[in-house]
C-alpha cells in the first residue's frame, strides 16, 4: 500500500467518527452545564461571593479544585454560579430575537411590496449598528445589569433571523403547494403560518444556534467591560475581567478557566445545533 493511501484511509475514518463523538461530547457537556446551572446552590462547594483573604490566588488545591481568585473566592463555585447567566442571557436573546424575526420576516416575505420594503429597511438600519454598541447604549440609558443588554441584543439579532425568514418565505410563497392550499379555500394567514412557516423553521433553527454562540460571547464581553452583570455576582465575563490582574502576576487560571468555558459552550452549541437542524430541517422531503 502506498503511503498516500495508507494515510488517507484512517483519516477518513477519523473524520466520520469525529462527528459522532463530537456530538456525544457536546451534548453531554451542555447537559452537564445545564444541570450545574439549575442546581448551582446545591452543588457548589462554597458560596460564590465568600471572600477568603488568607487564600488568594491559591492555584488548585484539595479544598479548591480550580484554585481561588485574587479575593480568595472559590473559582469552581463561581464557575457553577456563573453558568446561570452565561446560559440564561443568550437563551433569552435567542428566544426573543427568533420570535420577533420570524414574525417580521414572515410578514415582509409574504406581503411583499411596500410592507416588505419598510420592514427590510428597518432591518438594514438595525444591522448598521453592532450588537455590542446597541447593548452599551441600552446600558447607558437604562442602567447596568442583565435586562437592558438582553433586550437590546434581542433587537440587534432580530434582523439576522428576519432577513433569512423573509427570503425563505418569499421563495416558498411561489411554490405550487401554496397555490394548492389557496384553491381549497384556506385563508392567506392560515397558509402563511400553518403551511409555509413550518417549512422554513429548519433553516431558521440553524441560524438560531449560531446566534446563541455569538450572543454568549458578546454578553460575556459586556460583563468583561464592566457593563453587564455586576460584581459580586459571578459571571464568566466579569470573571475574565477580574482574572486579568492575576494574569500579570503569573496566575493564569482565574482568567483562563472562564475563557475556556465560553469557547467550549459556543463550540458545543454549534455542534448540537448543526446536528439538530440537519435532523429537523427537512425530515419529510
Amino acid at each position, binding site marked *: 500500500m502506498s503511503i498516500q493511501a495508507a494515510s488517507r484511509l484512517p483519516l477518513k475514518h477519523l473524520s466520520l467518527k469525529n462527528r459522532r463523538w463530537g456530538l456525544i461530547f457536546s451534548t453531554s457537556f451542555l447537559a452537564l452545564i445545564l444541570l450545574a446551572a439549575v442546581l448551582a446552590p446545591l452543588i457548589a462547594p462554597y458560596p460564590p461571593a465568600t471572600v477568603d483573604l488568607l487564600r488568594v490566588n491559591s492555584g488548585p488545591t484539595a479544598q479548591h479544585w480550580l484554585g481561588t481568585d485574587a479575593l480568595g473566592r472559590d473559582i469552581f463555585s463561581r464557575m457553577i454560579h456563573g453558568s446561570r447567566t452565561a446560559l440564561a442571557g443568550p437563551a433569552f436573546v435567542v428566544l426573543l430575537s427568533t420570535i420577533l424575526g420570524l414574525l417580521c420576516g414572515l410578514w415582509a416575505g409574504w406581503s411583499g411590496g411596500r410592507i416588505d420594503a419598510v420592514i427590510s429597511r428597518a432591518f438594514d438600519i438595525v444591522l448598521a449598528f453592532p450588537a455590542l454598541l446597541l447593548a452599551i447604549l441600552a446600558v447607558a440609558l437604562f442602567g447596568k445589569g442583565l435586562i437592558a443588554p438582553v433586550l437590546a441584543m434581542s433587537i440587534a439579532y432580530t434582523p439576522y433571523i428576519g432577513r433569512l425568514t423573509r427570503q425563505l418565505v418569499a421563495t416558498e410563497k411561489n411554490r405550487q*403547494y401554496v*397555490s*394548492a392550499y389557496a*384553491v*381549497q379555500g384556506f385563508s392567506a394567514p392560515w397558509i402563511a403560518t400553518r403551511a409555509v412557516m413550518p417549512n422554513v423553521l429548519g433553516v431558521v433553527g440553524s441560524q438560531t444556534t449560531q446566534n446563541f454562540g455569538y450572543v454568549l460571547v458578546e454578553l460575556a464581553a459586556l460583563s468583561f467591560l464592566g457593563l453587564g452583570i455586576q460584581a459580586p455576582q459571578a459571571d464568566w465575563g466579569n470573571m475574565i475581567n477580574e482574572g486579568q490582574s492575576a494574569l500579570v502576576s503569573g496566575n493564569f487560571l482565574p482568567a483562563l478557566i472562564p475563557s475556556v468555558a465560553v469557547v467550549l459552550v459556543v463550540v458545543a452549541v454549534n455542534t448540537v445545533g448543526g446536528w439538530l437542524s440537519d435532523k429537523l430541517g*427537512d425530515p*419529510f422531503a
Partner: protein
Amino acid sequence: MKILDIKELSIRVAAAAAPPLQLLEKVSMHIERGETVALVGESGSGKSLTARAVLGLLPSAAQVTGDIDLGGLAVLKASGAQLRAMRRGRAAMVFQDPRSSINPVRTLGAHLIEPMMQVPGANKAMLEARAVELLASMGLSNPEARMKQYPHELSGGMLQRVMIAGALMNDPELLICDESTTALDVTTQAAVIRLLSRAVSERSMGMLFITHDLALAASIADRTYVLRHGVLQEHGVTRQVFERPVSEYTQQLVAATPGMRSAPRSGSQPSGSAGAPVLSVENVSKTYQLRGQPPVRALKSVSLAIPAGGGLAIVGESGSGKSTLGRIVAGLEHADSGEITLAGGAITGGSARERRLKTASRVQMVFQDPYQSLDSRLTPAKALAAVLKLHYRLDAKAMRARIGQLLESVGLEERHANLYPRKLSGGQRQRVAIAKAMALNPRLLVLDEATSALDVSVQAQVLELVNKLRKDSGVAVLFISHDLAIVGEICDELLVVQDGAIVESGPTRAVLGNPQHPYTQTLLASVPRPRWETDPGAGTDPDPRHGDLEPARNNRS
C-alpha cells in the same frame, strides 16, 4: 463501423447501511457511424446513467463492470486525461434543460469557445469563425452578434440550439442527447429534431438519443433500445420495436403512448348536457406589468363556456396564457376585465371567508408537478383531513370514512393514507392531489398540465382516473395542456390559444382532424410521428429556418 460499443455494462451503488442497488444490469448496445439510436424508458430506468457511463462521468461510489468502447477508447479503464481528451474530441452531450446547463454570467461566445481553448495549439480566431458558422447552421439569425449575448437574452429553444452548436464544436463522432427537447415547446422541438437529424447525416456521426417519449423516438431513431429498471427489455429497428413489440413491457408502453395506439380512445366521453354552463368566461383580459419591462398581455379578451359535466381542453405553447386562464378560473388571480361566472351564479355577499369557501366548493384545481403541489409535511390522510375540516363539520368517524372513500375513489389503498409524500410515486402523488380536489365535490376541475410531469404509463392511468371521476360524479373538466396527442383522450371540445388569444375552437375531433388556423396546423405538424408514416423526404428539410416558428420572447420558458 461501430462508434460506440457497450458490452454487458452493469452498475451498482452500495450505500452505507442499505442493500446495494443494481442500477444497470448487463446492458449491451452499439451505435454505428451515421446512425441514430434511441434509448427509451421511464424515469429511473437508468437511461441517463448509461449516457454518463459512456462519457466516464459516473460517481466514484458506483461499482462498474463490463466494457465501453468509444471509437477505440476503453472508457472504463481510461485515465482522467484520456477521458478529458475524449470529451473534448470524440463525444459530446446535450442536456435536458439548456438554461440550467449553461453558465448565466458568460457570453454565448465564451461558452462555445472556451472548452476548445484547452486544446494545445488552439487558435481563437479560427474557433470564433467556426462558432459563428455553427450558430448560423443552427438557424440562429445574426450569429456574430449572438456571440456577445448572454443566455438570458435567448428563449429556451434558441438556447438549446446554442448548446447543440457547442456540442458540435469539437466535431464529435458521438453525440448524446439526454432528453434534449423535453423542455421545449412542440414546434421548437420539431425544429431542433430536424437540426439534429441533419447534423447526424451531414457529419456521419452517431447519435444516442435518450427520451421518455416513444413517439419522439419513433420520429428520429433508426434503432431503439427499451430500458426498464436497468434491464434492456427489447431492441431492434425502431419500426419493428414499436409496431411489433415482443416484450410485454414495450407493448404496455406503446399502448400507453398517445398517438401510437392504433385506435384513439376518444369519443367515450359523456357529452355535456344542455342547460346552464358550469363555467362561462366572457371577454377576460389580463396584463402583467413587470418593472422595467414592456407589459405582457397574457390574455386578450378570451371567452369560453363549459356545459355541466363537459370537458374542454385548452392547448397552447408556453407563454400562450393558458395557465393564466386556469389560475383566473380557479380564483388564484383576478382578471383585469371581463366576467367569470361559475355554476350557481355570482358569489356576492357574505364574509370574505364565506366567499372563499363557496368558490372552492365550485371549482378545484390539480397542478402540474405533484412533487411540488403537495405539502411534504402532510400524509394523504392529514392533507384530506385539513381540507375536510375547513369545509365540513364531520365527527372523527365520518371523517375517517370520508377519507377512506376519497382515497379509494382515486385508486389508492388504505396503506397509502399515512405515508409521507416522499414515499409515494409521482402517479400516487397526483392521485392524492386529485382526491384533495374531489373532496369538495366541485362542479369544475381545472387540470393544469396535470399529467405532463408523469411517466407515460402513469399518465395513461391518471387520464383514465379523470375520465372515471367525470362519469361517476359528473364533474366538468378544464384541461390545460401543451400536448395535442392527449387532449383527445379526455375532452370533447378543444380551444387553441396563441399569445393570449383563442385562434381556433370546436369539437376535438374536428379541430384535430381538419385544423383551419395556420397555427393549429403548425402545432399538429410538429407532433412527432413515426418516420415510416411521414414522407421519407420530409425529415431532411435543407433549410433549418423552416423550423424557426418560435416568436422572439424574452426570458419566458
